[in-house]
């Protein structure tokens, strides 16, 4: 009787701590954006990520490698009042537990921000904010290797941009 009780207690606590609330920045701070109809929202769950890994693809190894490390992906984008949302997002993220990684301000009026959430050496979350013709908020969760990610640029560049367009038109 007692051992069952103990087991139950442990079980309960373990579950409680392992399956906590969504830890990503979007869920935490931008739930109202998600609900907002102005935004296009995309979500890739860990399950989906697993399934992707099994998809037969011609893209390079690096990409697939990078995908393996991801547990989740969330994208929010809108063409309406990008500046306003950008400013709000910046405020929220700078005051959150996320660290600012990089800020780029281009002369063509585009602003880009990178935020990370680290746990020791590991980067657990990467958040990208873009303000330009549209507002983009992107959150990647997993075991992220920033160097690897940046290297992907070449491989994905052209195709990636195209796909992003497709995304918006959906």
């Amino acid at each position: 009787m007692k051992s069952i009780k103990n087991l139950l207690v442990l079980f309960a606590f373990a579950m409680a701590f392992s399956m906590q609330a969504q830890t990503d920045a979007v869920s935490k701070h931008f739930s109202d954006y998600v609900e907002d109809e102005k935004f296009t929202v995309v979500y890739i769950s860990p399950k989906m990520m697993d399934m992707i890994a099994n998809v037969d693809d011609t893209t390079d190894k690096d990409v697939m490698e990078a995908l393996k490390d991801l547990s989740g992906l969330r994208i929010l984008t809108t063409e309406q009042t990008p500046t306003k949302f950008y400013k709000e997002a910046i405020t929220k993220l700078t005051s959150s537990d996320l660290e600012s990684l990089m800020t780029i301000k281009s002369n063509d009026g585009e602003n880009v921000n990178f935020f990370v959430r680290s746990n020791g050496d590991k980067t657990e979350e990467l958040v990208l904010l873009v303000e330009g013709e549209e507002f983009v908020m992107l959150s990647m969760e997993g075991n992220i290797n920033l160097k690897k990610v940046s290297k992907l640029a070449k491989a994905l560049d052209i195709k990636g941009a195209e796909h992003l367009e497709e995304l918006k038109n959906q």
Partner: protein
Amino acid sequence: MEFNQIKGLVEKYFEGESSIQEEEQLRLYFAGSDIHKELTIYTSIFNTFKADAAVKLSGNFNTNLQSIIIDDVMGSFFEGETSVEDEQILKGYFNGKEIAEKHKNYKPYFTYTTQEAIPKLSSNFESNFQFKLVDSLLEDYFEGNTSLEDEKTLNEYFLGNKIAEHHKSYKSLFEFYDFESQLVLNSDFNKKLEARLNEPKVIPINRNKKEETKVRRMTPAIWRAAAMIALAIGGFWLLDLPNSNSVKTTPLAAASTIDWSKYEPKDPETALAETKAALALVSRKMKEGEEQTLKGFRKIKAANKAVGIN
């Protein structure tokens, strides 16, 4: 005595110039029987004087004198300057029967002082004093500061019949204590106790709940079981067991109330495409940043070279 002599004396008398001896002579003359015709009219005067003078001097004289003295003492009394003896005099006077008319109004003052005050002092005074004592004892009693003797005093007081109005509510209390203290164990108490102890145990039939309100004790076993159940329920309630994707409004997941499953692509191929796009964006932007940085460094390097710093 001769007529002319007497006449002369009478005239003198009425002029107020007669001596006592002369007056005495006149009295004697008029007390006798041989009074001249012309002088008979004065007879009553000198006779009255003789008779009344003696009486007045012995009866009213004293009373009048007394009255004057009383006036004087009373004056002092109302000024608060009388000695005890003076007051005694006044008491004596007012308790007597020969009180002057003008003094009769004052009688109550002095009769009250003598008659009524003393009895009050003797009966009520003692009681009042007693009551005050009891008040003080009661106070101590309710604070738990009474000695056994004090309590005995209180008991006696309450068992008597001279209880003050404001103490009467406590009477039943002390009567109860008295009663209880008189309870004595029966002589065969020990026997009875033994017999009862040796009786076989009889378990009472479970009675109707309405008859008795029992206090149900929470045994440790019950506590353990309750805790278990509570934890189990709590755990399940607090968690989001089925799917981490479908985030419902659970307390632990309170931060996000987003149901992300809505936004998932239907198939892995789409998912892959989207992920690739995302990665592309991220990496491109990162690259841009790096390039700018590198540009900057190159410029600095060039500038340094130009200046001569290596």
